[in-house]
């Protein structure tokens, strides 16, 4: 599974963020998600979508080495050893390592796929095709 984006399809519904927070934390809180939807209004009048592509810059930047790549290609934070320094947050090129006041450890995408499954517009999709494409309209 690999996240791909079609930003011109995004309608700003935030289903991806809602799904993300429910999946990661079992909480209803789009602010606790690893996706950023950037509305650009009134001009140019569209949305930019930022999602994690597992590039690993966060792992390179982490001074204590607590972000590691798993066999599935997903970088995960070891919450036990994270010091909350937030260097990774600065380093993330997509700006999708997010902080929330309720947590010391940043929020990192685990590639659960729920944003892909529930984005109604297929603006976030699976490049590898493991998650079937939804119909376009």
């Amino acid at each position, binding site marked *: 599974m690999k996240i791909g984006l079609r930003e*011109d*399809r995004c*309608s*700003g*519904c*935030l*289903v991806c963020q*809602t*799904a993300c*927070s*429910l*999946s990661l934390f*079992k*909480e*209803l*809180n*789009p*602010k*606790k998600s690893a996706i950023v939807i*950037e*509305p650009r*209004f*009134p*001009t140019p*009048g*569209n949305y930019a979508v930022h999602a994690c592509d597992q590039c690993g810059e966060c792992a390179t930047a982490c001074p204590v080495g607590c972000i590691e790549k798993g066999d599935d290609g997903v970088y995960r934070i070891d919450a036990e050893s994270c010091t909350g320094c937030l260097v990774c947050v600065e380093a993330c090129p997509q700006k999708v390592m997010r902080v*929330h*006041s*309720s947590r010391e450890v940043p929020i990192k995408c685990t590639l659960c796929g729920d944003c892909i*499954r*529930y984005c*109604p*517009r297929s603006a976030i999709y699976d490049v590898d095709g493991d998650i079937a494409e*939804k*119909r376009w*309209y």
Partner: protein
Amino acid sequence: MLNGYAGTILEVDLTRGAVRKEPLPEKLAREWIGGRGFVAKTLWDRVPAGADPLGPDNIVVVAAGPLTGAPSLGAGRVHFGAKSPATGGYGDANMGGHFGPELKQAGYDMIVVTGRSDEPKYLFIDDDRVELRDASHLWGLGTMKAEETLKKELGEEFQVATIGPAGEKLVNYACVSHDFGRQAGRTGIGAVLGSKKLKAFAVRGTKTIPLADPAAVWAKGQEMYRAVFDNPGMAQWTPEGTAGVVNWANEVGAFPTRNFSSSYFTEHEEINGHALIEKLKPISKGCQGCPTPCGKYSTAKSRLGEAPVEGPEYETVALLGGNLGLDHIEEVAYLNHVIDDLGLDTISTGAVVGFAMECYQKGLLSKEEVGRELAFGDAEAALWLIRKIAAREGIGDLLAHGVKKAGEEFGPIAQAIAPHVKGLELSGYEFRNAPAMMLAYATCDIGAHHNRAWAITYDVQVGQDKVEGKAQKVIELQHVRPIFDHLGVCRLQWVEIGFDYNHYSALLKPVVGRDYTWDDLMAVSEKVWNLNRCFNVREIPGFGRSWDYPPARTWQDPVPDGPAKGKFIPRERVETLLDDYYRLRGWSADGLPTRRKLEALGLGEVAAALADRLPG
């Protein structure tokens, strides 16, 4: 903790410049659900009888529902309410976008604004931090600029709802605007905020909304989305959004044309959903949670000017297109932008301008009185008049009161063609060939608005000439449709693509942790309907049957052309429809709820408060 709710009401006293937090009473949540229910109950309880709608005693209520922000289709909705300056009675308006979910995440289900400030203010909400802040730099700005300015100052994450210059100038149909194109459009709530000198709300919320059973909520939410993805209606409805209705409305002879004098616009294909997509090439923009985004956002370019706009959606195409005789979608879109930016309701504004044009055509209004010529099809005249209204200059000052007041000034011929009920202008369905739709407009609690009962589909289904059985259907719809406004979700997935409404009651259970059947929600909706009728009885002197009549054109003038040619609704049939409706509602022949009926609905206190006005 009340699951599904943020748990706190924000009390904003503009006179004293003070903000207070109150716990959301469990009884309010259980008995009135949220959104529209909260608005109706709070207006009844808190607006002093006889309050001037534009005076300090009126209040503005903003309320989210238990599904606002939930993983549900169209969960971005929030409800506004106030005593309406347009009707003098119950006023409310529903708004999409992202404001409602943000408000709940900040920790509030409802804002109650009271009093009046001497200086322009805006309400700043950043989670627990709530302040009334100076808005002198925003006063006078259009809604687009005001929203942009606040987002620049505070951060993109803030959700902003603002009034425009028309609200500041107390135009009776000024609206509240949000997300560069979403409005709480009807009943003049923008004017009420303007009278209080509250320019805007800006809110950011980062808190988790408590749920009774989060895992079950997400499971149910996933089920809803999967069901809607499989729904064939998605493909048909989403690309054009509500503007897709233009062709159908013409085919059934219901499209407002030249001040509702006709119901068929020959050039409708120039302004339909297809034209919108082809000519404006918009992106789709929706509310939170929406799988079928109906907002179509683009840059409108025409000889009138160039500007960004969300829309035009169906109502705007109807009221500014057919109703003004305009056959260029780009011009309709540009006027849409201007009206949005001034903070006016496109529906009422289109109705007022169309009315002025027909009065001019009929010689009821002279060039000297207006200050220029007016004619259907003249987009420049429309633009000129819209600006006059917002600035309340010349004829615009009178027209700012709406078609009812203007009709009274222009005389009986004008009154017969003034498109309104109770003082609220008609929205986008001409109904001389649709008796159920006429009844829906006649009896709607806020005045001539379509969305409490979009009964025209029923007219088409069972026969556009028939009156039998129509009242029953209108009542049923008047209960079903507002439920969505109680819950804080959009109704369009149910209306337009036939999404099963039982999904919403099923989702409500794990959200709030209590069983509600759809019938339970219907009972609340009926209670609210009756309460709002009582609000009108209390606030509008002499309120009753005589306030429920549509314009006399309904029975005086047959439709001149199109599929409904020759149709009108004879006066006796109007009376029959009203008789049926009141009887089925358990109201008197004068349209007053009986005390017995109110007691049966659990509104005994309301019955007692109006004991001298209501029949037993």
